[in-house]
């Protein structure tokens, strides 16, 4: 069993220990939970150090065979089990997930009698997303997605504020529906790749290669589908499967008009949960779009490109305008995140290296910045008892450091150069203008709007005369500096030297495009 297996398993072990070991103190419970994420992070960093930059396929492959279904489809066996691996697309997101889970655990306050449960669910959710990003077969992917879904559900339900119950069920229903759509689309694709929907034409040798071999293996499916996806599908079936997948992505990723669960969830969850959801869980849909949409059906992505690009721009603008109207920082961050992820759609629709690379950068960048914003507004909330923008003001006086970091996070989110936000934006737009100049011209208005809504919020939060009620409130504590400084540093490092992660996915992105032909 390889290193990636342990990356995913470490939080599961921590969760299991939390569940069964009796009589440990809250601090020890917290430490145990953190230890799980910390092991994942260290192992992920080791995997990064060993990463082979020269290849685009999966590395560090770990397979655990569970059982075999004999002769399930045209006399061939189907192996069911867990298989994990890393490639250029997954490693950056694994690192992101491991970092943010650990920092979310650090950020979580001690809870009377409930520390154990919180860290248990957090560890399971972490294992879930790590599994999603490292899954090498469809079974593992779907299983991990379910794990993250219900763990996060309990985090929202049990640790949120008033109204969190409704938010939790909204979250569960939406993302549950997305999972079902993923399941349908992915199993359908595997079935189709095995020739299950019939074929239209054989290849040049007159042989239908791969037909009859049913597999859930993602690399094998990529090979089969890219070689002759024309041949293995009746076009309408392929389109339908793609649209089902796309619908799943739109719901999973909270794209307009399937987005209302995200602001509601963020509004009612505690900061640590928000960091995890906003930072990591809202990247799984975009990952699925890259991995399965572009990876399996590039022809369909190209065919529906205008639709995807227009959806992307609608999200950019809708999210930005909606963010402008928000009174609550948490809803503002949620809509800002929707706006950012709209740019991911535009980059993917472009189907060129800059666009896909921009999409990858944006996923990482948006994850870091969303987590940072939720952490900082959470820290402010812990002092002022509110995240309502009109109630805040003049915070630079009592808490200059928190205010300063909040400004950095806002500037990163509005895409200021030398932050990760800019690198993402410019590449996604280079990609967008390369393929859809007209649509992209409309999309750049989002760059102005992001400055508008973030600086409006900043002006009302940290600027202005100091309010009487907030005098004497303490600035950041040493414990709060850890997540703040780590996330800020990552945002700046990627902004100053983007190659630090860009080198990871450069080849993988090109491999996706080779498939696209």
């Amino acid at each position, binding site marked *: 069993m390889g290193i990636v297996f342990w990356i995913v398993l470490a939080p599961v072990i921590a969760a299991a220990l939390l569940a069964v070991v009796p009589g440990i103190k809250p601090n020890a419970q917290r430490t145990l939970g953190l230890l799980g994420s910390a092991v994942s992070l260290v192992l992920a960093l080791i995997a990064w150090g060993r990463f082979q930059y020269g290849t685009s396929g999966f590395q560090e492959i770990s397979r655990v065979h569970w059982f075999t*279904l004999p002769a*399930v*489809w045209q006399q061939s066996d189907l192996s069911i089990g867990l298989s994990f691996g890393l490639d250029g697309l997954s490693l950056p997101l694994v690192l992101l997930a491991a970092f943010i889970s650990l920092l979310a655990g650090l950020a979580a306050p001690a809870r009377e009698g409930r520390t154990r449960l919180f860290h248990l669910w957090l560890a399971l959710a972490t294992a879930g997303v790590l599994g999603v990003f490292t899954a090498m077969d469809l*079974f593992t992917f*779907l299983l991990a997605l*379910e794990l993250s879904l*219900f763990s996060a*559900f*309990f985090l929202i339900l*049990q640790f949120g504020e008033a109204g969190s119950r409704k938010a939790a069920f909204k979250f569960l*229903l939406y993302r549950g529906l997305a999972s079902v759509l993923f*399941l349908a689309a992915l*199993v359908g694709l595997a*079935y189709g790749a095995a020739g299950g929907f019939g074929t239209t034409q054989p290849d040049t040798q007159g042989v239908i290669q791969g037909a009859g071999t*049913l597999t859930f293996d993602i690399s094998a499916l990529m090979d089969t589908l890219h070689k002759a996806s024309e041949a293995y599908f009746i076009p309408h079936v392929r389109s339908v499967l793609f649209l089902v997948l796309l619908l799943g992505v739109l719901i999973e990723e909270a794209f*307009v008009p399937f987005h*209302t669960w995200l*602001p509601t969830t963020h509004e009612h969850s505690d900061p640590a949960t928000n960091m995890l959801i906003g930072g990591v869980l809202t990247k799984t849909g975009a990952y699925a779009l890259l991995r399965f949409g572009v990876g399996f059906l590039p022809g369909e992505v190209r065919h529906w490109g205008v639709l995807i690009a227009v959806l992307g721009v609608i999200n950019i603008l*809708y999210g930005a*305008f*909606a963010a*402008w*109207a*928000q009174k609550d920082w948490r809803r503002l961050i949620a809509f800002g995140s929707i706006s950012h992820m709209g740019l991911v759609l535009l980059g993917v629709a472009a189907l*060129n290296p*800059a666009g896909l*690379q921009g999409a990858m950068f944006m996923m990482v960048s948006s994850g870091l910045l969303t987590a940072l914003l939720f952490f900082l507004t959470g820290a402010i909330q812990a002092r002022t008892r509110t995240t309502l923008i009109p109630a805040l003001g*003049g915070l*630079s*006086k009592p808490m*200059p450091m928190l205010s300063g970091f909040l400004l950095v996070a806002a*500037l990163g989110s509005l895409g*200021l*150069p*030398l932050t990760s936000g*800019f*690198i993402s934006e*410019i590449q996604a*737009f*280079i990609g967008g*203008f*390369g393929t859809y100049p007209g649509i992209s011209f409309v999309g*750049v*208005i989002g*760059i*102005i*709007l992001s*400055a*508008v809504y973030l*600086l409006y919020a900043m*002006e009302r939060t940290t*600027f*202005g*005369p*100091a309010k009487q009620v907030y005098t004497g409130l303490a600035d950041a504590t040493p414990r709060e500096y850890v997540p703040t400084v780590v996330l800020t540093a990552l945002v700046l490092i990627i902004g100053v*030297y*983007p*190659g630090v992660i*860009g080198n990871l996915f*450069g080849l993988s992105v090109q491999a996706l495009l080779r498939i696209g032909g």
Partner: protein
Amino acid sequence: MVEYAWLVPLLPLVAYVFLLVLGRRAPEGIVAGVSVVLTFIAFLVSALVFRSVGQNPDLTGPYVFHWLTVGSKSLTVGFEVTHLNALMLVVVSLVSTLVLLFSKGYMHGDDRFPVFYQYLNLFVFSMLALVISPNLLQLYIFWEMVGLCSYLLVGFWYFKPEAALAAKKSFIVTRIGDVGLFVGIILLFLASGSFDYSTIFTAAAAGKLSLGWISGSGLVTLAAILIFVGAVGKSAQFPLHVWLPDAMEGPTPVSALIHAATMVAAGVYLVARCYPLFQLSPAALSTVAWIGGITALLAALIALTQRDIKRVIAYSTISQLGYMMMALGVGAYAYGVFHLMTHAFFKALLFLAAGSVIHAVDTQDLFEMGGLYRKMKLTAWTFLAGALALAGIVPFAGFWSKDDILAAALESGHTVLYAFGLIAAFCTAFYIFRVYFLTFTGEPRDPERYEHAHEGSWVMTLPLVVLAVLATIGGFFNTPWSGYGLERYLFADSPQGSIGVTTPENVGLMALSVVVGLLGIGLAALMYGRRRRIEPEKLARGASFLYQLSYRKFYLDEIYYFVVVATGKAIAAVVDFVDRYIIDGIVRLVGWVVGLVGTGLRYTQTGQVQAYTAVAAFGVLILVAWAMWSIGGVL
């Protein structure tokens, strides 16, 4: 020496990092001392670079390193030295050094004195790095960084609501322009495969720039105009000029450095740096010329009636930047750059002198000043030098550069623009001497403030003197007596001498400019001088409409508010409404219907976590089972 030019931006960066490490409690002397010394060394290095470029016109470089791979393209960062940016390095580092010194006195006693110096050093670094960038991407990066520093410094007194609003406004309005630049450089990158100036210009000159959806020449025009949109935002040109007067909420040294001498000139620098592209598009050049001319006139008209000393000078800056753009637009490349240089000196001087006054009387209202000559002789004399330079009176620096621009406008056939420039020149002379008379001559209007007024310490007066000298003699750099040194220097970049036109000295036009300037000064003297003949109040009442038009800044702020800001807010409100009540309403409706159907299942909601867990786990099992069954069915 050229290969060490990277030291120039590095030194202020070192100062910034050093101050960051020292923290917010560092003593003022060390903070200011380190900043001034390092920036002064940067100035010395710049001067050496400038000399070495002059001696050896065959430039090497650019010096670049790999930064990021995008597909098959390698993006690079690094630095380059050209004749244009060698001059810019000298101007920027010199003015920066003087302003950093002046700030020691001006900001003395401020709670956040070290923070102020941190921001200023970050600005100086970013500005120098912008100038020395070898490609458009890196330029854009630092273009935004200087904008950030401007935002931070305008909002430095964050507790003042006006400062907070002004900071936000400055960032957002310039960002509208920045988006133009952003798209422009992306299109150029897509068409040429590179952000490098030389690659793009070579391809453009060879007619090799093209994208599928636009013709080659159309693309050049589009890209040039988009780049110019960026310059319009940064250099506060009409219609995006509205942020600069508000930016005067920042401390006055900031106004002198960022909002007069350096950052706002970055737009002019950008157009100058991309001149080979603009020259390929008559439409783009014409746009530049007209926007510049309109801005020069409009801002000068507004400056006539403002009551706030800093706002008068701010509108003056907008107007002068308009002259520079006009020069570039009519093809007078060297004169635009020449005026950029002289303006940097005399406008920084005017702002610092105004700062010295504000420091002394603690007000910015011209009508609360008066008679300060007796208390602040040095400030008054240096301000006078700056005012004469701005008014274009021979032989002060502004005369030579402004006169060159006007002559070039006429020479190139832009008669209307020449007229705009001449009218603006009259206004310029009037408004700046209105300030001079109201501030320094006559009787004190506020005796209490007058009582407390006094000259600042040497850290404040020395920069004034140095800049006054430059404002007086800086123009000789490009006169017959120096053999048109600047033109020859700048044109060394293009062996064919094709980069812009020059005009022979025209004594008649020169005389006309001086007469117009003197008339403006004379009118100011008649209205505000010791022996006033014309009552300004009567005039204002008599021409009430025109007075209000000027005083209310042509109502542009109000128009923008209702047309742009209110529309944006309305859209945001509509989107929010749609989101809460329509989209989420449908969601709730669906949920309600489903709920109705599922009333019978309500008993399953026990509220017990364990039960939910079990259900969820069971769900996963069913999913697995279904997957297996759908595949081959072992169950």
